């Protein structure tokens, strides 16, 4: 992978200089902080909004509700941001001609793609850790502490799911010269995977299926099957990256 180090350095600098990393980290922090807050105050909010007209009985919120809210928010906002991060990564460079600038240097196309995917994964990783840290802290303040090792492992699984969505969009960005087409593929895959996730035999091996073991880990539940879904997602990301490389190495710039 000729030139990978230099290209990764460039990609990470680009994530920072174009404010993608700070913006995504800030959005994720807000998601992380707001999730336990929403879980804690939803009954009060509904009561205030409904007044005496509705009689809604909700169970007392718990730390599990706070985690569920975080997982739901990351699964939606996070996936959308993963799509936004990846949609223009290759397509824009092909369209603007900067890919031709780099690829007339001794930089392999595999390195070009790998550096981009690693940089996107890094941005998502930093942002997910920030979101998780914020959520963990507010869960501690508003409910009770969650075990750090389990919560950290759950965060890794959530990050892996986001990287999978980014990798699907990244493939779209590599196959086309259009960021919008890539985003379309990312959003479509999000919907399709959401539908497929309700099929028990398939669902647990999809990126959306990582939610269940992540929840078990975060809440310290026994007998959580982590290996199968994790390996499946890692393989999926690898396959998507491989297809992207096979296609990109034959593309004219």
């Amino acid at each position, binding site marked *: 992978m000729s030139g990978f180090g230099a290209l990764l350095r460039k990609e990470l600098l*680009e994530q920072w200089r174009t404010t993608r990393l700070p913006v995504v980290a800030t959005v994720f922090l807000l998601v992380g902080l707001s999730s336990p807050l929403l879980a804690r105050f939803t009954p009060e909010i509904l009561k205030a909004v409904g007044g005496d007209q509705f009689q809604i009985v909700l169970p007392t919120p718990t730390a599990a509700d706070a985690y569920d809210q975080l997982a739901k928010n990351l699964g939606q906002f996070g996936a959308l941001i993963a799509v936004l991060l990846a949609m223009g990564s290759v397509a824009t460079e092909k369209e603007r001609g900067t890919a031709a600038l780099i690829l007339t*240097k*001794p930089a392999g196309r595999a390195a070009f793609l790998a550096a981009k995917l690693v940089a996107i994964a890094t941005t998502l990783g930093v942002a997910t850790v920030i979101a998780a840290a914020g959520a963990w802290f507010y869960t501690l303040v508003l409910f009770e502490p969650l075990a750090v090792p389990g919560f950290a492992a759950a965060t890794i699984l959530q990050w892996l799911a986001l990287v999978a969505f980014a990798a699907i969009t990244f493939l779209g960005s590599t196959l086309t010269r259009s960021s919008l087409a890539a985003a379309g593929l990312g959003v479509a895959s999000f919907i399709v995977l959401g539908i497929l996730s309700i099929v028990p035999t398939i669902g647990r091996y999809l990126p959306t299926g990582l939610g269940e073991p992540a929840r078990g880990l975060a809440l310290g539940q026994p007998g959580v099957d982590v290996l199968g879904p994790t390996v499946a997602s890692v393989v999926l990301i690898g396959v998507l990256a491989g297809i992207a490389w096979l296609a990109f*190495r034959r593309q*004219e710039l």
Partner: protein
Amino acid sequence: MTAALTGSVTTTAPAGPAIEARGLSKRFGAILALDGLDLRVPRGSVFGLLGPNGAGKTTTIRILTGLARPTAGSASVAGVEVALDEPRLHRRVGYLDQDPRFYSWMKGRELLELVGRLHGLAGSELRTRVGEMLIRTGLVAAADRRIGGYSGGMRQRLGIAQALLHGPDILFLDEPVSSLDPEGRRDLLELIAGLRGEATVVFSTHVLSDVERICDRVAILDRGRRVTEGPLEELLAAHARPIFRLVPASGQDEAVATLVERLRAATWSTDVAADRGLVRVTVSDADAAAAGLLPLVVAAGVVLESFERARPTLEDVFLELVGPAPTAELDGRGFVRPREVGPR
């Protein structure tokens, strides 16, 4: 852009021509952009790739730099078979696009450092090379500004700096002076000429005077085909016909029109062009023309301000071989339409 080129970071080049293209063809749908192009560029030459718009110059360079794949044929550059995704090729070549694009968020110095790292430079060697290139291209003052704020000329000079940074064996420059001001244009042409014997330069343009100024070999392309190729002096000797230039005194339009008619009728004239006070007569037999031309002028009653036998130029060769594009072959913008072919 005045400093001298310093040491190269590339390895010793293998023997043989710097570039060899064998029957290169490139088709874009129904358009045949290259049609069996053969090319042999000797090492150390400054090679002009000439042709009108749509001749296939950019397509040729894009194939030779591994950005595009030929539909048929093959090519080797610096001993490496040309292919997409071939870092061995890119270690040996420098490339400047006709419309160089960069990362607008990056600073000029950062771009050169990135390119240097991709070429395996690091530490003080990298900083030294980047500093040299910034001086050489006159970008020192702008080095730490974002490229997004650069003018077209500055981007072109940055493009030249990144192409030369690693001391390439072969330098591909696609219309490199198109957006430079006269001073920048002169400096770049001097810089390219200074690389003679040190690197092989392939320089595409449709500005014939630039080619005459710096190139020692020329290939003329027309609609994807090589029309001719060889040392500039040989092409001039082989293809350029003798030319006489006459400048009539002003206010003799009728007499000049008569003269032009008579010149066209002369057996030794092959082309007569009258434009903006200049009559240009291309002849097949210089001696016969020298003897017969002035009597025709006198007979038409034209008073001349000047009369000279001109040294043939590359423009004459170009017009002889390619000719002005017929109106039917020009698109709406005045560019030559590429040839369309049916499916093979």
